[in-house]
């Protein structure tokens, strides 16, 4: 059986790539993709931990997370479309109407 640390390490790496993507990339769609990557890293961790501990909770949570991520994609992409219609850009740095 593959040791749990392999799964946790992979999950941590995926999560870190996601965080870095949100921090570095300026295209809102790519930032959103990176967030999805973070959620999937979490799913991997839940499944691995659930299997390791022989508990069903970790497996069930993943279904909730997938569902929520789908709902989040619907709302998020709708907002991105609304922004693009008004501003013709999805670059986070150009969204600067609101400043103090």
């Amino acid at each position, binding site marked *: 059986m593959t040791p749990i640390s392999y799964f*946790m390490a992979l999950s941590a790496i995926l*999560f870190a790539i*996601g*965080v870095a993507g*949100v921090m570095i990339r300026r295209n*809102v769609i790519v*930032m*959103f993709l990176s*967030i999805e990557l*973070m*959620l999937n*890293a*979490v799913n991997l*961790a*839940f499944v691995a*931990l659930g299997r390791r*501990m*022989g*508990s*069903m*909770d*970790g497996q*069930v*949570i993943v279904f*909730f*997370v997938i569902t*929520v991520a789908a*709902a*989040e994609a619907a*709302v*998020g992409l*709708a*907002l*991105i479309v*609304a*922004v693009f219609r*008004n*501003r013709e850009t999805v670059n*986070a740095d150009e*969204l600067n*109407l*609101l400043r*103090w």
Partner: protein
Amino acid sequence: MNQFTLSAVHFAWLPILPLIAMALGAMTVMLVGPQVDDDDSAGLGVIALLTLLIAFVLTLFTFSQNHLAFGGALVADDYAAFFDLLIIIATAVIVAMSLDYVSDEGLAGAEYYALILFSALGMMLMAAADDLIIIFLGLETMSLAIYALAGFMRRDPKSNEGAIKYFILGAFSTGFLLYGIALVYGATGTIKLEPIRAALAAGNASNPLLLLGLGLMLIGFGFKVAAVPFHMWTPDAYQGAPTPVTAFMAVGVKIAAFAGFMRVFMVSLGPVSAEWSGVLWVIAAITMTIGNLTALVQDNIKRMLAYSAIANAGYLMLGMAAAPARAAGGAMLYYLLGYAFTNLGAFAVVIALARRSETRDRISDFRGLARTHPGLAAAMALFMLSLAGVPPLAGFVGKFYLFSAALGAGLVWLVVIAALNSAISVYYYTRVIVEMYAREGGEVTIEPLGARPALLISIVVAVAGTILIGLYPQPYMSSAAAAYASAVRRPAIAATAALR
């Protein structure tokens, strides 16, 4: 593998009846919606108000029940009931102040009121959750609806921009919260709050996985309550959103986020409070300082109230830093109660000032309000004084209880910082009062409030709440303390539920 058996799930309907009522009401609004004109959507608001009334009555029945439902995923204790009632009242006031605003602006009424109800449903779920995954679901139900509401003025670039910033950072923080939940699950072997507490109290879970999970969950909740340095979205989302939605974000989201935050950290993670209270000490200090200092230079009233909301999150986290002290939890609940009424009132006045398709949200727009509309100006002055912490209003009494609870826990220096901050905040709150009463010029004419009775009623309710909660704090304070105590007493409830 553990076998999952249905008989182990103890179904108790009472705790979720208010939630079912809210969901059914929201669906009714969506079903009736297409028959209603967007220019005349007040009827849908009335359906929403009726739904909230039903949920309110049903919630009253859950007091002193201490039921567990759905195999311990939900708990119906006084803590949940207290927050549910507060959320329902705040939502009702917000629906009331939206009635004219939504039809005047020609916003889609069906979607608006349905999203408000769904969002309130998520908030109530968060307050009643006894399971980390239910907290996550409640948080997302609330947030997804709020993201859509924040961007509700589809053709307004500011509304778009505030919503997208809120969405990206909100979803980002959700990732941290979930990863934190996963690691706490890995460290303790469970996602149920009470078993987590029991495992931590037994001292068999103090490892790096737990500490990392704690930190990530702190980041996730920190975003939602708008704590520095996770506050960047707050002013933009508050300024861009339609004003009633801003009020909903400042009051409802803050209350619900603290309901979840407090239950997870102060109750469930209470046994390891030594590991996180130091971090909260620092976050509370920088949150109130940065919130207050940045509020000083704002010209926009919604932005100023956003920074004020950040500063208030700092004061509330002062209570969390004092976690092991029992008094701090009750004081925080009382503070949230006063904060809710005061902020609802302030935003209602901002709505009253706006004219059809013309936002008047600069602080200078308040100039001369006292001469043309003395009643409205007096109400606004009252709310500003309460936020600044002037006795005998709700804001002062809340700060008094909170600061003395923190002093009792020995956080002398943090209370000194908080008191200094409180003094700084007087400057920007009184600036609004000075604009209204002392500055020349800028005669404001607004539509008379008599033509907008629902808005008038919501301002009157907020004024009454701000004064009553401050003048007669005793009943509210004792019910707040009892509510918090019921959450801490959870081990006893778990035992009786197991016997049943």
